[in-house]
């Protein structure tokens, strides 16, 4: 039997197999694991290319354009370069921790994709608690990062790792709360069902504040500008992966982009209507939206400077958390008080509320703190 690797045929093949048929369970798992790993690798390669190209264009330069047409082979060349590099382990490093860290970081980053629907029903495991699974698994990456920072026995790495822990744990909370609004409206925890709930209106219009909080918190989760102080190159050289080279660095690189990919995929699924869309096949819509979110992230990266650690933490606890809580309460009240409201009406109310809240919060925005008397 021929098995096309990607395309709607393959997806429908995967759907066609009933999961309770003996053997097909494993076939399903096997097929999806291979597909997801290929998908992640290819998309990550494309992402690195796109990031450099798009960033280049924002910076009035062409970006990589030598290897292959439009520089498309550049990521492949980079991979080979990284694979051929000497793998350096510092003398004083904790060898085991140093070796294990990239693996520990990589596994959860890949696991997230198990529950992301590429089109209706096309996913590795349609867990009815999909979103909880994502939140639980994605926060495990921190452990790998901290292992890397600790195991390198380098002060820059350690500082970077400490920042990672503080930042990622703080931003979990607004991230989860911003998703709660979506859960309340869609009434389900399964990602596939959530996408189906966005048949008419994407949740970005229903939950504008939720989307803003989600994107901000997600940027912090994956340590992208303006929250990239984990690897702040002008302060910490390269943060937790200062002492990594070769293949292990490549793994961290993969983790970083896989996380970004995951975040973009979740944003797509929860707020942008997932695979919903006219004319094109659903999985293509999914990938288009994925790239749109990613390009937004790059665009932000190309513009903004980075924050300081105490400002980042303050922003999470003083701004995002109250906003997210208010958002949850308002959404809950709306759903209770007006159960069969048209989503668009809710959206308009929420938009006004969001604007007012953001404006009010901006009054609390203080400049110039942060000096510690010594």
């Amino acid at each position: 039997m021929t098995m096309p690797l990607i395309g709607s045929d393959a997806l429908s093949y995967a759907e066609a197999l009933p999961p309770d048929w003996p053997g097909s369970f494993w076939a399903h798992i096997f097929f999806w694991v291979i597909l997801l790993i290929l998908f992640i690798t290819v998309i990550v390669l494309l992402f690195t290319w796109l990031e450099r190209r798009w960033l280049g264009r924002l910076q009035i330069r062409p970006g990589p354009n030598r290897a292959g047409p439009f520089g498309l082979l550049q990521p492949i060349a980079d991979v080979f370069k990284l694979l051929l590099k000497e793998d350096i382990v510092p003398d004083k490093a904790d060898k085991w921790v140093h070796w294990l860290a990239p693996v520990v970081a990589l596994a959860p980053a890949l696991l997230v994709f198990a529950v992301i629907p590429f089109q209706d029903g096309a996913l590795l495991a349609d867990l009815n608690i999909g979103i909880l699974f994502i939140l639980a698994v994605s926060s495990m990456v921190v452990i790998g990062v901290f292992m890397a920072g600790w195991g390198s026995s380098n002060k820059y790495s350690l500082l970077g790792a400490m920042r990672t822990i503080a930042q990622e744990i703080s931003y979990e909370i607004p991230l989860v709360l911003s998703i709660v609004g979506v859960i309340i409206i869609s009434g389900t925890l399964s990602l596939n069902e959530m996408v189906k709930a966005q048949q008419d209106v994407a949740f970005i219009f229903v939950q504008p504040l939720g989307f803003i909080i989600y994107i901000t918190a997600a940027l912090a989760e994956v340590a992208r500008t303006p929250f990239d102080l984990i690897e702040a190159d002008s302060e910490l050289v390269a943060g937790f992966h200062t002492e990594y080279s070769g293949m292990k660095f490549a793994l961290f690189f993969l983790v970083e982009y896989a996380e970004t990919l995951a975040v973009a995929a979740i944003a797509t699924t929860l707020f942008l209507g997932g695979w919903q869309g006219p004319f094109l096949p659903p999985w293509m819509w999914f990938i288009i939206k994925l790239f749109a979110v990613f390009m937004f992230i790059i665009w932000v990266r190309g513009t903004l400077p980075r924050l300081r650690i105490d400002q980042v933490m303050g922003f999470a606890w003083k701004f995002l958390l109250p906003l997210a809580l208010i958002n949850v309460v308002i959404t809950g009240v709306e759903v209770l008080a007006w159960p069969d409201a048209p989503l668009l009406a809710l959206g308009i109310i929420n938009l006004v509320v969001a604007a007012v809240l953001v404006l009010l919060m901006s009054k609390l925005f203080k400049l110039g703190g942060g000096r510690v008397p010594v």
Partner: protein
Amino acid sequence: MFPFERYGKGIAKGMAVTFKHFGRKWITTQYPEQKLNMSRRIRGTDIIWVRETCIACQACARACPVGAIEMQVSRGEDKKLKVDFMSIDFSLCIFCGLCIEPCPPGNAIYMSHNYERTTYRCTDISAGHEDITPSDKRCNELIVVGDDLEMAEGKRKSAYGRPDEYEKLPRQTLLLEQIQYLDDMRKKWG
């Protein structure tokens, strides 16, 4: 007045600026394929010495702040000074151009218009030496002696301190003028 500030307006403005640049022409060049015309007065990475017009006064050697020019002269039978040995050590030369100005005839020494001294291998810098991996020997490679300093094919005199050469050289490409090359490049490199 709108009583609120710092609600994200500045970020939006900045992002608008970067987005605008997405549509702009890029300003870098694809170097080995796309070469710009250098300034006509460029102090290129070579010095051209003209044996015929040189009066062996050693003004250039005395003007050099780093002592890169070595010139040995002697009186010939006709009581005229002639150059026995002339060398410039390009590993010392800082390309300041001070040797050009004091030259009494004004046409015995020139900066060159060439600016590319890079090669893929160190042996390409000067032919004929293949065993020059140690760095001390490589420095010796940069001492250029006598005839090699003179005009040769591919060398071009710069107009630095030599106004006569000015019109002979191509016009400098200024980034300011956004010349055609940017468009050409865009077509070629996508």
